[in-house]
């Protein structure tokens, strides 16, 4: 993939200018973005890294993405096959349950709708699973209809391993722990099975606009 050093410099300059000018127009900017920031969240300009374990070493030659579970014939793509699928660039706001939100993040990847094309299933739920054993549960309706992607670029660059590269899940309308890093597939399920965090206190659904952080929210 082509690197764009010029663009990175421009971005750094913009960040610096944003930092310098915050004192003068920070307040106005906060007001402008408040309709996009869910309750209890604050906006960050950097991209914090959240990890529940060591960053897996991924060999793309052996990497695959699978759809399994409630499906007659499980589907599987190699990295080359996935990268050859129709892709799109999406600009989304993301909201982490640790209370930071990041606006207008740019991702490139494949819509889950493309991966599920022609699939018939009795499933209503899914488990997204990753290298390193991480899992998260999301209703099937929440990853279809142009609401979720399997992404491999962030901000025009290959996705850094710290941020889930080579490939992560992106379901930006839910808290960001649902956007599993180092994703390897989707398990289609008739029943809802709580994932890594959902089985220990975190909300089964995780809607940031309803502040569904914990069990009972």
């Amino acid at each position, binding site marked *: 993939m082509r690197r764009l050093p010029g663009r990175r410099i421009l971005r750094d300059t913009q960040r610096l200018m944003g930092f310098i000018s915050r004192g003068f127009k920070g307040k106005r900017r906060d007001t402008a973005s408040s309709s996009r920031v869910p309750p209890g969240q604050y906006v960050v300009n950097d991209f*914090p*890294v*959240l*990890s*529940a*374990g*060591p*960053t897996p070493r991924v060999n793309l030659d052996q990497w695959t993405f699978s759809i399994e579970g409630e499906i007659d014939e499980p589907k599987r793509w190699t990295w080359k096959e996935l990268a050859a699928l129709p892709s799109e660039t999406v600009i989304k706001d993301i909201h*982490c*349950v*640790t209370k930071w939100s990041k606006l207008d993040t740019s991702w490139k990847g494949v819509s889950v709708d493309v991966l599920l094309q022609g699939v018939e299933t009795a499933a209503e739920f899914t488990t997204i699973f990753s290298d390193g*054993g991480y899992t998260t549960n999301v209703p099937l309706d929440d990853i279809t209809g142009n609401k979720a992607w399997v992404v491999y670029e962030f901000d025009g660059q290959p996705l850094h*391993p*710290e941020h889930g590269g080579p490939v992560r899940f992106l379901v930006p309308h839910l808290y960001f*722990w649902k956007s599993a890093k180092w994703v390897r597939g989707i398990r289609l399920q008739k029943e809802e099975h709580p994932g*890594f*965090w959902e*089985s*220990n*206190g*975190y909300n089964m659904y995780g809607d940031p606009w309803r502040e569904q*952080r*914990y*069990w*009972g*929210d």
Partner: protein
Amino acid sequence: MSVDERKLDGNAIGGLLREIFTMEMTAAETTCAGCGAINALGRVDVYMDAPGAVVRCPSCESVLMRIVHGRGRYWVDLTGTRCLEFAES
């Protein structure tokens, strides 16, 4: 921050464990349900910048404990700890 710097040792959750068990716990010994390794809590691997604290076995990296704290409650998962041994306070 590099990936390695994210990994802390068990002293990073010394305070959190004191809140939960109301005593000093870093000398308590965990037996890993995955590989059987026995380690003092002060010596295990800890990842703190996730939505909760994740405690991992330094021998096999499997999860020993997950601790979530929010809304005035704690959720403590000890599935990966076969035994937790500690002295009376």
